[in-house]
């Protein structure tokens, strides 16, 4: 029921933000479309912790600024690599073991790695991620430990890192 309510609030906010016209007719059409979306999501069995992950919003909003900082730092490294007169890179493939338990936390961790320029998650098997990095020294498994811990704490809750 909480997931249902979260999805409802998110859809209403999305509709109001997108529309900009608040006449009675359009509001009626909007509520009909929100109801239709909810019915479809219910029939497709999508209303669970992955279809409506708004309960984890607080943890994620604490994780987000840190991720942005990492992305900016990594961007600078890759921009330098792109523009250097002589190409000087050392690509590497590494296996990273994750402490994330739920699928959502693993997806968050893998997407964070991919979103950071210079590293891409190539494959996930169980709790091991195959990561391709632009610089060998920057993509050792220890380099991802903090991101791993933070995304596990953001999605799985505080007790997940023990």
């Amino acid at each position: 029921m909480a997931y249902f309510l979260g999805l409802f609030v998110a859809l209403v906010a999305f509709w109001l933000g997108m529309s900009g016209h608040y006449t009675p007719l359009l509001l009626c059409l909007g509520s009909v479309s929100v109801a239709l979306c909810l019915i479809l999501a219910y029939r497709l069995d999508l209303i669970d912790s992955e279809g409506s992950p708004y309960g984890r919003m607080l943890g994620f909003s604490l994780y987000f600024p840190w991720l942005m900082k990492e992305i900016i730092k990594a961007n600078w490294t890759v921009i330098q690599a792109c523009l250097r007169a002589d190409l000087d890179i050392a690509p590497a493939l590494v296996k990273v073991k994750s402490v994330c338990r739920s699928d959502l936390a693993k997806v968050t961790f893998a997407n964070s790695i991919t979103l950071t320029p210079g590293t891409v998650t190539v494959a996930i098997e169980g709790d091991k991620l195959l990561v391709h990095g632009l610089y060998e020294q920057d993509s050792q498994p220890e380099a991802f430990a903090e991101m791993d811990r933070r995304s596990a704490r953001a999605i799985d809750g505080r007790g997940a890192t023990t």
Partner: protein
Amino acid sequence: MSDFIANLQAWFEVVRYPAGAAVSLAGALLCMVGTIGVMRFPDFYTRLHAASITDTSGATLVLIGMALMAPGWLIVAKLLTIFLFMFFTSPTASHAVANAAHTAGLQPLIGPINGRRNREEDSQ
């Protein structure tokens, strides 16, 4: 105090168009840097890294610039939605492409690569 806030608002109205244009231009330049990287890097996986500059900082800066020039809060909300969707979909797309290449058996170049080695390969 209210005078100061009114002054600040007037100042922001003047400054936001040039600032937004400058930030958008910086984003466009970063997209170009990403493109240059895609051209220069040697193999598929390293090119993916260069493309991710365009995805993250380039697009984010262009969106921030547009938000500075936006005529109303509704437009800012829409730009924020675009940013969120980009933020969630672009790594998924990169991962799908990389995973497809890995599954198809494309081996990445490993180890130090510098300009000299590239030229030797070109001359062969």
